[in-house]
């Protein structure tokens, strides 16, 4: 057994062991399993949120974009800061409402606010449709990381199946407590690994950060600024705004809000998380350092840049540790996604179909669904296809369509009717699907438009269609509650 394999195996065993041990002393009803009994303090919520946010997308995709695209990658650093500044106001409102009504899933929130089971089913379907590609993405990432860090000794398919089985095991046993415990380990590891490689590589290969960026700029003039068209400033601004709107619409982030013990947790996190985000800066450094050290990675292979440059720079043991940290960036979000998807299907789809089901049955169904969802994702991950970022972007556009209906429901009562919310979300999703299938951009939709307009992120179109349909239906179906609100001061 090679040293890299030993290190990887050790990480794997520790992570799964922690995940299993997390159950101790807790009875696993649905509220415990999905939400940790709503008892998490600031630190656990912090690692859970950070754990979900820093996924294989950050680790592989962040460095891959810096390596392959340059300055447009910087958008990844922008949207988090903006979403966190909103979260200070948004999350406490969501938490208080969910806490008072003991809500379990994101769809529950829409069901309760709009008093509509049908809307809950729609939101659940959207959630599952977005979560599955996201899980596929984590598993694909896991396969890449393990096969690279083991120097090819473990094939991606073996890694994906082993990872899937382990995930299913600790998710079924411990639920979100398992995620939180492994997330704590992951945060320490990823912070250490990313800081070390992000600082070491530029100094080792170029003599410093400034020297590295100047060398990149000399080799690829204009790489460190945004181009005048395409991924231009207009593209960055529209993409950041869109992504910030979608950020907390992911069902697993939304549900992790429910795990908190008090709402002050979110205000603390809104202060800390932007700073913590700077981890991504060091991921960029690794990607930029790779440009001149391991040139020639094209297309989806750009996602390998961080691992390839690390293999060039370090020995077998450190590469094992980097791979182990990467493994955790796949397992932690993967476990949250699994829990959330299974909970949504059991709580909002199964229960809608079988209204007489008891809480015990729903909890059992949720856990029974974990292996099913995991197996579907593993099969999809093995069949290959799009690159890491493309998959994530489609899921992102799906969940972003929930944003208008959510915001309009945050007051004491929703401002629009359930039918309006339903119609808006449906129209938005259909548009996303059509745009994704046709690979359209605003440039192809409106070839005569001015350039700045063509550079807008095409996701804006779906959101606009959503809002227009929502408003049109809202005008003809104003809810009684809205009229009462309008009359009130």
């Amino acid at each position, binding site marked *: 057994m090679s040293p890299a394999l030993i290190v990887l195996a050790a990480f794997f065993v520790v992570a799964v062991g922690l995940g299993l041990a997390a159950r101790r002393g807790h009875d696993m009803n649905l509220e415990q399993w999905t939400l940790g009994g709503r008892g998490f303090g600031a630190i656990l919520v912090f690692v859970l949120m950070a754990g979900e946010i820093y996924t294989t997308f950050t680790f592989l995709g962040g460095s891959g974009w810096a390596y392959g695209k340059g*300055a447009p990658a*910087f958008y990844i*650093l*922008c949207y*988090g*800061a*903006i979403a*966190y*500044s*909103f979260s*200070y*106001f*948004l999350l*406490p*409102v969501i938490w*208080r409402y969910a806490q008072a009504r003991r809500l379990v899933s994101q769809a529950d929130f829409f069901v309760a606010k709009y008093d509509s089971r049908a809307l809950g089913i729609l939101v659940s379907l959207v959630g599952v449709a977005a979560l599955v590609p996201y899980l596929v993405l984590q598993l694909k990432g896991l396969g890449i990381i393990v096969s690279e860090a083991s120097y090819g000794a473990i094939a991606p398919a073996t890694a994906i199946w082993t990872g899937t089985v382990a995930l299913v095991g600790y998710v079924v046993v411990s639920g979100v407590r398992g995620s939180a415990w492994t997330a704590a380990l992951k945060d320490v590891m990823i912070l250490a690994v990313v800081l070390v490689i992000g600082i070491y590589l530029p100094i080792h290969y170029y003599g*410093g*950060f*400034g*020297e*590295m*960026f*100047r060398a990149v*700029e000399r080799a690829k003039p204009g790489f*460190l*600024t*945004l181009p005048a068209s395409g991924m231009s*400033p207009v593209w*960055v*601004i529209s993409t*950041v*705004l869109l992504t*910030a709107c979608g950020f907390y619409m992911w069902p697993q982030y939304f549900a992790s809000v429910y795990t908190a013990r008090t709402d002050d947790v979110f*205000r*603390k996190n*809104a*202060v*800390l998380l*932007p*700073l913590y*985000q*700077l981890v991504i*800066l060091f991921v*960029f450094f690794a990607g930029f350092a790779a440009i001149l050290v391991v040139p020639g990675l094209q297309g989806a292979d750009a996602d390998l840049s961080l691992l390839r440059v690390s293999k060039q720079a370090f020995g077998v043991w450190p590469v094992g540790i980097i791979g182990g940290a990467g493994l955790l960036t796949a397992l932690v979000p993967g476990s949250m996604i699994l829990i959330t998807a299974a909970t949504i299907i059991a709580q909002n789809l199964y229960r809608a179909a079988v209204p007489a089901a008891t809480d015990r049955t729903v909890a059992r169904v949720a856990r029974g669904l974990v292996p099913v969802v995991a197996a579907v994702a593993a099969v999809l991950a093995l069949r290959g296809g799009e690159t890491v970022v493309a998959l994530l972007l489609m899921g992102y556009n799906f969940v972003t369509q929930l944003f208008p209906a959510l*915001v309009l429901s*945050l*007051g004491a009562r929703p401002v629009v009717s359930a039918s309006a919310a339903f119609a808006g979300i449906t129209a938005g999703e259909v548009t996303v699907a059509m745009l994704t299938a046709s690979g359209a951009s605003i440039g192809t939709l409106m070839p005569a438009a001015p350039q700045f307009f063509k550079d807008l992120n095409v996701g804006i179109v779906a959101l606009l269609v959503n809002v227009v349909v929502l408003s049109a239906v809202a005008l003809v179906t104003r809810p009684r509650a809205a009229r009462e609100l309008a009359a009130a001061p």
Partner: protein
Amino acid sequence: MTSDAGPRRARPYRALAALPTIGLLAGIPFANRTEPYVFGLPFLLFWIVAWVVATSVIMGIVWTLDRRRP
């Protein structure tokens, strides 16, 4: 976005929370250059990093002021 529920008091300092969105994004077209390098970072990247740090500071100020009020 939305304001906190509960007794509505004037909390004008909360408008500070809009600064990251406005400052970071509105500045991007103007900050879109490499020179001058700051702390070794090309200017565009420095601009973004500075705003990310500023976001933490700004939200820290809002939180501190919020906690002073009952």
